[in-house]
C-alpha cells in the first residue's frame, strides 16, 4: 500500500464515516486488512509449528496487536525505515516482508531472511527498509537516532519509524534516544505499543504516569495516545507524525494502547492477569472491529472480506510448506557472516 493513495480523498466521498476511516480508500483498506490477516495467520501458524516441534527457540506473538503494526506503517513510503522489537513479526509483515522468507528464518533455514542465524527475534530485511527486530528491550531506540542522523546528512527525505513496548519506555535508552532525536529534530517516529504489560509487569506498577505518551513532554515533542486496536485511528496519528518528521519538524511519540492475547512467550503461565481481562480485550479484536465498521458503512461485503482472509491463510500455508522444505545452514559456514570483508 503506498502512502499517497491514503491521502487521495480526505474522506470527501465518504461523508458518514469518521474522518480517520474516510481518509483510507478501499484499496488501502484491503491492503491493510490483508496484512492484518497475514500477521494473525502467521502468528497462529508459528504457534502451531512450535507445538509440532518445528521451532527450536522461543517466540513472542503479537496476536491482538495487528492494528498498531499495520496502522502505524501505513503512511510510510517504500524507502522509509522501520526498527522493530522482539515481538516483531507483525512489523515485518506490515512493512512488506515475505512470510515464506520469515518462516524460513523462523525454522532456522539458510533461505531465511537472516540465513537462519537470527531467528524470530532478529528478522531483518535491510534492503527492504526493515532494519531489524531486536532481542534487547529498547535496543532499537538509540539505533533509530543514528538512522535519523543518516537521513538528515544524506538529505534523502526518508523517515525512520521505531517500535517499542511500554516496558521498553522504562529503559534509559528510551530517554537518551528521545532526547537526541528531539534536540536534532530528526525524522524519527517513536511508536510505543502499550499492551499493558512488560512481560508480567503491569504498566501501572512500572511507571507512575498514566500514558507513555505523557513522557513526550520531557522532550518537548508531540505525544499522541491512541486506541491501538483501531487501524484507522492509528494510521491517522501516524500520518501526522510521519508528515512532521518528513518535513523536518522533528520526532513524535505515538502510543498505541493495545493488548497481546497470548502470553509473553511460551513460558508464560498468565499468572499476572485474569482470564476476564483477556476475554474483554478479545472483544476488541482489531480485525473484526475494522471489518464490522466497513460492513456497517457498506464499503466491503462479507464475501469479499472473507476472501481477503482466505487468501491470507493460503499464503501463510504455502509459506510454512516452503520453509519446511528448505535446507539447514552448513555448520562449516559458522563464522562466515561474522565480519564483512
Amino acid at each position, binding site marked *: 500500500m503506498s502512502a499517497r493513495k491514503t491521502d487521495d480523498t480526505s474522506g470527501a466521498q465518504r461523508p458518514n464515516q469518521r474522518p480517520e476511516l474516510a481518509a483510507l480508500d478501499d484499496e488501502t483498506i484491503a491492503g491493510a486488512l490483508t496484512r492484518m490477516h497475514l500477521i494473525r495467520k502467521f502468528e497462529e501458524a508459528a504457534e502451531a509449528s512450535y507445538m509440532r516441534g518445528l*521451532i*527450536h*527457540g*522461543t517466540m513472542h506473538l503479537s496476536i491482538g496487536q495487528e492494528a498498531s503494526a499495520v496502522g502505524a506503517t501505513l503512511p510510510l513510503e517504500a524507502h522509509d525505515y522501520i526498527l522493530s522489537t522482539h515481538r516483531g513479526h507483525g512489523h515485518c509483515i506490515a512493512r512488506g516482508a515475505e512470510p515464506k522468507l520469515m518462516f524460513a528464518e523462523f525454522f*532456522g*533455514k539458510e533461505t531465511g531472511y*537472516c540465513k*537462519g*542465524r*537470527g*531467528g*524470530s*527475534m*532478529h528478522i531483518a530485511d535491510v534492503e527492504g527498509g526493515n532494519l531489524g527486530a*531486536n*532481542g*534487547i*528491550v*529498547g*535496543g532499537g531506540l538509540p539505533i533509530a537516532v543514528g538512522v535519523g542522523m543518516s537521513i538528515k546528512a544524506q538529505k534523502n527525505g526518508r523517515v525512520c519509524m521505531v517500535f517499542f513496548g511500554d*516496558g*521498553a519506555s*522504562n*529503559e*534509559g535508552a528510551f530517554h537518551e534516544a528521545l532526547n537526541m532525536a528531539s534536540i536534532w529534530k530528526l525524522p524519527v517516529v517513536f511508536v510505543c505499543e502499550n499492551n499493558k504489560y*512488560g*512481560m*508480567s*509487569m503491569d504498566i501501572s*506498577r*512500572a*511507571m507512575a504516569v498514566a500514558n507513555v505518551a505523557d513522557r513526550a513532554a520531557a522532550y518537548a515533542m508531540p505525544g499522541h495516545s491512541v486506541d491501538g486496536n483501531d487501524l484507522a485511528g492509528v494510521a491517522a496519528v501516524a500520518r501526522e507524525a510521519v508528515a512532521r518528521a518528513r518535513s523536518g519538524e522533528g520526532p513524535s511519540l505515538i502510543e498505541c494502547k493495545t493488548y497481546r492475547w497470548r502470553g509473553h512467550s511460551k*513460558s*508464560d503461565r498468565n*499468572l*499476572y492477569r485474569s482470564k476476564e481481562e483477556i476475554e474483554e480485550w478479545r472483544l476488541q479484536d482489531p480485525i473484526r472491529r475494522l471489518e464490522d465498521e466497513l460492513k456497517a458503512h457498506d464499503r466491503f461485503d462479507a464475501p469479499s472480506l472473507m476472501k481477503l482472509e482466505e487468501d491470507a491463510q493460503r499464503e501463510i500455508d504455502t509459506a510454512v510448506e516452503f520453509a519446511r522444505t528448505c535446507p*539447514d*545452514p552448513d*555448520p562449516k559456514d*559458522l*563464522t562466515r*557472516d*561474522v565480519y564483512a570483508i
Partner: protein
Amino acid sequence: MPSETLEATGDVRELSYAEAVREALGQAMEADERVFLFGEDVGVYGGAFGVSGDLVHRFGKERVIDTPISELGIAGAAVGAAITGMRPVLEIQFSDFVTLAMEQLVNQAAKIRFMFGGKASVPMVVRLPGGSGTGAAAQHSQSLEAWFAHVPGLKVLQPSTPHDAKGMLLAAIDDPNPVLIFEHKLLYKTKGHVPAEAYRVPIGQAAIRREGRDITIVGSSIMARKAEAAAERLAGDGISAEVIDLRSIRPIDFTTIAESVRKTHRLLVVYEGVKTMGIGAEISAMIAESEVFDFLDAPIIRLGGADSPIPYNPVLEKAAVPQEDDIVTAAANLVRRGEA
C-alpha cells in the same frame, strides 16, 4: 556426582538446579531480614526461568520485588541498598542484559570499597542466567563471565551442580563483597543431591570431580558436567582424566589446578564463552607462567566458544560451543601427543 555425596550431610534430597537456587534464596531470606530479591518478573511470574517460583508468596512483595525493565537502574539500586545495610540479591533476567548494567557493576560496585579507602563494603549478589542451547540466538545466549573475572573488586562464580548452586549462593549472600553468579540455563533442570540445611560452599575453591592420572580437564559451568561425561568415555579408551570443576573464576583456585597438572602433565581447559579472551586463557596463562610449566609434557589446549555470535539454527548453535565429543577428541589427542 561423587563430590556432592561426599559434601552432603543430614537430609539430602534430589533437587533441580533451579530448585536448589530457590531453596538457598528462601533460607537466606528466612535467616536474615536484610536479604531481599529483586529483578524483572521475579515476583508473581516466578522468574523467567522459574527460579524464584513461589518466593513472592512466601515473603511478600516488599522482599521479592518486580522491577521495571531498567537494568542499569536496578544494578545501581543493588549498590545503594548494599552500602546502606541491606543484602540485595538481584536477578538479571538473561546475562546478556548485563551489558546495560556494566557501569554500576564495574565502576561502582567493584570499586566503591577501594575508592573509599576500605570504609564501605558492597555486599550484593547478582544472579545471571547465561549460556546457549535454548535457541534464543545471539542476544540471549552469551557467556560473558570472563569480563567480570577481569575486574578487581568483584567475585565471580559458575556453579555447575544443584549442590553448588545452593551452597555457593548462600556463601555469596554472606560475602561482604559484590558477587556475580553465572547460572547456565541448560543446568536449571538438571538434578542432583542437595542437603536440606543451609550449608555454604566456600568461594574460590575448585572441585575435583574425578581423579585421574593422564590429563587434567578443567571445565567451568556446564562444561564441567560435559567434561565429567567425557572422562567417563575416555576411561573406556584407557585414558585416565582428572576433572576439575572450576566453580569460581574470580578468584581462581590456582592451587588445585596446579597440583593436578603437576601430576598429569597435561592440561585441557573447556569453557563455553568465546575462546579468545575467555576464562581458559587465564587458566592456561596462569599455568604457563608458574613453576608447573616445567611439568608440562604437551601444549595447554583450550576448547572454547567459536569466534562468532551464537546462531539461532540449532545445528549451528551446537557447533558454536564445545560438545562432549570435542572434549573426548581433544583429550585423547593431547594424551597421545604427549606420548608420541
